[in-house]
């Protein structure tokens, strides 16, 4: 279980990394599909603004590099990594900029991935529905379920 502001990586086939009910947050999976290593981060906000040295994985600018490092530490090969993004919804239909955290999160995560040279292979982002992401380590399968929907495989 990867909760708000947490991240995890695994090389154990059969492990499932899960973030339940992502709203404006982003579930970011980073995988080396050949060796079956995967990691998942639950990113809450786009930018730490350099707030303190504390290692808070809430923020995209801290979480993304750390997640990539963890996946590499578990045996993932940096040039062969790819990423899958889920979440970043606008849950409440209002135009207040403060509530558009979802879009800003997605942009920040993509920006960090580009800096690290990790391509985005698939994304289920935006819209107005919450989502659950499951990352099946080993099989390198990722499933997503929207609120009120069925679980689907992401390619």
């Amino acid at each position, binding site marked *: 279980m990867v909760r708000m502001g947490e991240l995890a990586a695994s090389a154990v086939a059969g492990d499932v990394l899960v973030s339940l009910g992502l*709203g*404006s947050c982003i579930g970011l999976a980073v995988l080396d599909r050949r060796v079956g290593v995967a990691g998942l981060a639950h990113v809450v*906000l786009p930018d730490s603004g350099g707030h303190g040295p504390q290692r808070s994985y809430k923020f995209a600018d801290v979480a993304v590099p750390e997640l990539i490092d963890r996946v590499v530490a578990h045996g993932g090969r940096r040039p062969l990594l790819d990423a899958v993004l889920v979440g970043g*919804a606008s849950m409440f239909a*209002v135009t*207040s900029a403060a509530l558009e955290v979802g879009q800003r999160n997605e942009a920040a995560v993509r920006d960090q991935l580009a800096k690290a040279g990790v391509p985005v292979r698939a994304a289920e982002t935006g819209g107005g529905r919450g989502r659950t992401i499951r990352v099946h380590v080993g099989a390198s399968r990722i499933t997503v379920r929207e*609120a009120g929907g069925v679980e689907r495989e992401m390619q």
Partner: protein
Amino acid sequence: MTQYTDLQLDALRELANVGSGTASTALSSMLGRSVDISVPHAYVLPMADAVAEVGDPEADATGVVLGVVGDMGASVLLLFSPSDAAQMCALLGVEAGTEIGDSALMEIGNIMGASYLTALGMMTGMALEPTPPAAATDMLAAIVETVLAERAGAGDIALLLDSQLAVEGSDASVSFLLVPDAGGVDQLLARLGL
């Protein structure tokens, strides 16, 4: 992790108690029925734990959120289970899950939120104003984390003041949460001289 003393938590609970008491009176006059309130909980939790404290992350829920502006930034969040939403709408003579149903729930949020904030403002001497409500029906965790994300800022700690209100003569209840900005809790406590 920031720790609050028992005295401070008691004071926060008391604020929530008076606030939700006022909100329940408002709900009661809207529905024409009496409304019971439970003793509120004050949770001070790492953000990661806060979502699970509210309920099953993947359960369906309708959330009505109001922003709070003025001397303290915060969000007011009302949570209805599908059956709560259906019964609450039935009491108001509208159908849940429709546009008019959502708008009825938002009106409940509006009226309860405004009276809660008025009571909170009177007790603390703060000027607090609600912003217009918005509603979403979705996974509980998606609703709660979106509100927490907006209020979290740099802090990793969430304060939830949680009151349950139950409508007499029906099974309808609503969960009423106040989620202050990271610095808002200290501000509340400072106003109370704690």
